[in-house]
């Protein structure tokens, strides 16, 4: 949905326009936010952050100074920025300040490590490929279980299997994936 389409729809019904935009980008935004916050935030925090992202996008779309074309990149940027803000807010509470003179300071990683970034990207690509090779519904089960951290009961509703069947398939898929990763010399 482009900004122009959004405005046209909003002229008729603001709520419907927002819902269309939300429906189109929800999965994308949720995944970005979840991917950033999965280690430190509760589901409620993640939902709040996703809501915040969309509120920001609606407001930006209302503005006259706008952009043409596909807004996916823009929506993604807002989602990353908001998720980073929330990540900083949540982790700040847990981390104390470290003086530069402290011995611990030397152990703090530099915020940007190009070599590491490239390696991780390659690793992610290989990992996703291996998961995809498991085929459905195993690939979905693995992603749901180990990335989205959903329970077998929740996954069972998504893949139309019983929770027991999900557990069995998950165990087999995990074994298969582990073998593939080992063969590729990938350790997680």
């Amino acid at each position, binding site marked *: 949905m482009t900004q122009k389409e959004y405005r046209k729809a909003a002229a008729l019904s603001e709520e419907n326009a927002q819902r269309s935009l939300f429906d189109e980008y929800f999965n994308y935004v949720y995944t970005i936010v979840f991917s950033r916050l999965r280690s430190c935030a509760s589901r409620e925090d993640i939902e709040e952050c996703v809501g915040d992202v969309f509120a920001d996008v609606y407001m930006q779309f209302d503005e006259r100074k706008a952009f043409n074309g596909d807004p996916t990149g823009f929506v993604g940027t807002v989602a990353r920025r908001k998720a980073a803000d929330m990540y900083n807010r949540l982790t700040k509470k847990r981390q104390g300040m470290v003086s530069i003179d402290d011995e611990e300071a030397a152990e703090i990683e530099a915020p940007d490590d190009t070599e590491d970034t490239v390696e991780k990207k390659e690793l*992610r690509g290989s990992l996703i490929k291996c998961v995809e090779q498991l085929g459905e519904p195993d690939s979905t089960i693995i992603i749901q279980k*180990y990335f989205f951290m959903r329970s077998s009961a929740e996954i069972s509703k998504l893949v139309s299997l019983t929770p027991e069947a999900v557990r069995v398939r998950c165990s087999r898929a995990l074994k298969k994936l582990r073998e593939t990763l080992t063969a590729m010399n990938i350790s997680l």
Partner: protein
Amino acid sequence: MNDKELNLDVLENADEDTIKKIAADCPASDEEKERTFAMSRKIYKERTRESEYKNDMEVSGVDVYKRPVWLKFAAAAAAVAIAAGAITGGGILLKRHRTQPKVDSSEIEERAMSPFGDLSGCRVRLTNAAIAPAVFEPNEENRTALLTALNEGDWNKISPDTPLPDGETELIYLMNGTKPCRLTLYGDHTICYEDNSSKERYEIDIDTENAVREAIKYAPEAGDELIYLDVNDLNNINSVWLTTSSLNPDYADVYIPPAGKIFTVPAKNCRFCINEKWDAEAAFSCEGAPEAMSIFTELEWKEADCEPNFVDDICFFSFRCSNNDGLFNYSLNVYSNGYAYAEYSDKSTGEAGSCIYMLKSQDRGNLQAAFVGAAFAQLDNMDPAEEIKHCKPLLMQISRTDDTSKLLNLYDNAMNTAAADALKAASWEALPDDAECGEEVCRLRINENLYLQTYYFYDNNVAVIGYEKKEIQRFSRADRHNKVSLGLCMEKS
């Protein structure tokens, strides 16, 4: 990696490609989605209100009643109280349901009530000086907040003869079952209560007054719709409930593509020309047909890639509208090659914009169809003198011999104009269909932009006019003509 777990932390903060792949497996349920959507709307509304509030502050300075800070806390406290009440109440109900049906009356807390009874089930209609004689029904949240405030407020009865203060009042119409009443909120913290048999005046506490004022604000952006009444209806606590339609025929909603939003303007200030360029004298009014303008929201307004030469092209539809003070103006010209030029300015806000669009062939057809109906509806009620002002004669033919079926073109524009002026100057009176016609002495055929008309003039000062409606689709080159239908018999005086 242990035997039972798989560490996918590497996918955290992933790149775009990975995100898009994982997003296909997004596990959020419909409930989660709905909750998140509601949250996004809530945050959006809060921010929009805050930004509007900031703007108000910049323009008008400090206005403590505009958005009292305590209301945030009151609202939060109320929300907590409602939630706590719901949980406690639910718990009590469950407990009672599971145990003995017998209820100890001492456990039931007495419900707060206004001096005129429990108002919590009332229907509400509201108005004030800004929107009168229209009223609106508040949304459920505001209705509940208002009725709760009225039920729980401190009411102190005072003499009905207490002088009324100057300033604006807020009118609150309540329908409690079948019993209507009206509350008039004055600026001196007093409320006048009226029903069909009594009239009383009360003083209320400041917290109640603020809560009431907050709940009765008219907020069109939140969905409040005006219901237009006769001004006399506001004086009658019964008749205020009779009208249910929210359409105001005097106003029209016009979608302005360069602004990307709808402006509401008086319908009488909306005019259009069809099958010709803009001509203020020939333009048709949209009064009585505000629905035709809804077509503007249905068209695909695609910006044109290049700027065409409008001078050489034929304008087949033009539209103008403005508000009463002339500060808002909008013009639209649509050309037969599909280009459309739209321009608006709103001097009250400083907004202005223009854009060239390329409309689809189907959209142009729909646009024309929407307005042709409105044009013909108006032409049906016009006499020929009035009609010819609105229909531009393109070609005229006249009989020059006794054989009136042989028609010859008028020589030039001057003759066309002279003939049109003669028709305009004549006074016309409609006759019944069976009015007697004499012998035909002359025939005049006019090819207009909307009609093909044939005037049959008789020697007893009677003229019969045949109309052939044109459905011109210039852009598709598929002109079609309807069959001639016999129109009015007219006596030319």
